[in-house]
């Protein structure tokens, strides 16, 4: 064990506090803006802490009164939930059998490599035909259409995660069940899927995060409250003529809450999922 001089220890603590400040300051400011009265935010010199915390914007955005700022926000919240939910469900349904197949039969692995290589494609390379295709099918400005497009991002990623998950389940366990006379579906139901449940959950959460974060396709393929997602609604607010910056901040806090909570709760699983590719090289 390395002996640490007091100077070195002090240096470590100073750096740690600095790092914590760098991470927390912008986030804290987002929250403070959301609860500061508009006058405080426009004050010069700027008031860094509100005289009286004002949570009314949260109520305003979550209200569903017609034609209010809240109606547009809650509609986009619902659209984001629907799109993320549908796309995640579909991605997992595709990823589980495909991931298992590649894990157990490496000779078909090249097809998964090709699917994963599509990660390099910039979305702009697909956007024009996708736009024309959705328009042809009448699925522009439609949550179902958008969820289908999100599979371009979600499905390769979840399949790759499921494949590494199945890799860590010994095939001997499955073989034993099959020798005892279980068919493939039965083996999956009794042995494989229960063992893979944590990986399925992690993959699903990753998929939800990716869908929740998506902006480019949502910007292109949605145009009003019927399908606009949260990210587009927030970009509209940020780029629009909203004079109350606190309201924009409040929308940001609300949109950030679900993924941040998922991130904090799932920390360990997310980090191992994120780094597994990195560490294995």
């Amino acid at each position, binding site marked *: 064990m390395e002996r640490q001089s007091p100077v070195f220890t002090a240096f470590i603590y100073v750096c740690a506090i600095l790092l914590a400040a760098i991470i927390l300051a912008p986030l804290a400011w987002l929250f403070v803006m959301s609860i500061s009265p508009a006058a405080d935010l426009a004050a010069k010199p700027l008031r860094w802490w509100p005289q009286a915390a004002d949570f009314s914007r949260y109520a305003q955005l979550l209200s569903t009164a017609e034609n209010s700022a809240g109606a547009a926000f809650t509609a986009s919240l619902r659209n984001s939930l629907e799109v993320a939910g549908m796309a995640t469900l579909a991605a997992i349904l595709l990823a589980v059998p495909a991931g298992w197949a590649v894990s157990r039969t490496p000779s078909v692995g090249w097809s998964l490599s090709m699917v994963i290589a599509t990660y390099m494609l910039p979305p702009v*390379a697909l956007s024009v*035909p996708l736009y*024309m295709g959705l328009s042809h099918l009448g699925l522009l400005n439609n949550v179902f259409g958008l969820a289908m497009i999100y599979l371009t991002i979600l499905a390769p990623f979840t399949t790759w995660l499921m494949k590494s998950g199945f890799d860590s389940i010994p095939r001997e366990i499955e073989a034993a069940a099959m020798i005892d006379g279980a068919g493939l579906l039965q083996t999956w139901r009794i042995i494989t899927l229960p063992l893979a449940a944590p990986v399925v959950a992690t993959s699903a959460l990753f998929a939800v995060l990716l869908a929740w974060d998506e902006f480019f396709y949502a910007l292109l393929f949605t145009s009003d409250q019927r399908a606009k997602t949260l990210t587009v609604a927030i*970009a509209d607010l940020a780029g629009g003529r909203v004079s109350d910056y606190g309201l924009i901040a409040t929308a940001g806090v609300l949109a950030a809450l679900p993924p941040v909570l998922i991130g904090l709760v799932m*920390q360990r699983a997310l980090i191992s999922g994120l780094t597994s590719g990195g*560490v294995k090289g």
Partner: protein
Amino acid sequence: MSGTWMTTRAWLLMLPLLVIMVAVIGWPLVDTVMLSFTDAQLVGTAGSYVGFDNYTNMLTSSNFSRTLVTTTWFAVVSVAAEMVLGVLAALLLNQQFRGRAVLRGLMILPWALPTVVNATLWRLIYNPEYGALNAALTQLHIIGDYRSWLGEPGTALAALIVADCWKNFPLVALIALAALQAVPRDITAAALVDGAGPFNRFRFVILPYLAGPLMVALVLRTIEAFKVFDIIWVMTRGGPANSTRSLSILVYQEAFSFQRAGSGASLALIVTLLVTVLAVAYAALVRKTAGSAA
């Protein structure tokens, strides 16, 4: 069980995924290639064959070369800064101190924050009239007057890079930290006994363990930075005076704002080709690094 049946079964299990991938990626990509040789509009006319006109027009336009420089600059500076900050943060988090677990937990926050929320947050911070950055810098007497950080070509790109780094360096830190924790303690201890200073210990003992994972992070981050759209769209829309316009923004403008689908498609494919070349070059580098580190 016979190998042929195993392979057939594997293909059957992959079929749903492959069918969907062909529908939403394969076919659109082929269609983009075909569009790129026409003068098709986004809505209405299917367009007629124009050969390589779109490509030559695009490659010789000053818009393209300027945007390519901007994108490269954005990618190189932000990824380099993310790597350096990430490794420094990981080295710190690998030390013993109180509150280390909490600090490590905080690192997940910027990563989890949606990109659009991050962009909006920084847009508010940089606001020329009411922004926190102007307020802090004037109250500390570092600048005299409020500035329009995103409104001036001289500072807009740098301001974007800071916002991008803040969101992405924690991920690099977490990847580097995982690699650092795989360095056996007795090896660093042995190097210490042998009298290696902090720099030499980092360079010769720790860095070989970091190289592989960091290369992967570098590849993924560079590809993403080259494709950048969201953060720029929300913060500046490519302005002022196109000083922050990335290649993806240029494609968007060409194909969707000006509705020139054919010309936009050709530009999108040029970008795709650039990213592919980058990725292949990197993959070779990763294999080399992984080989030398092992």
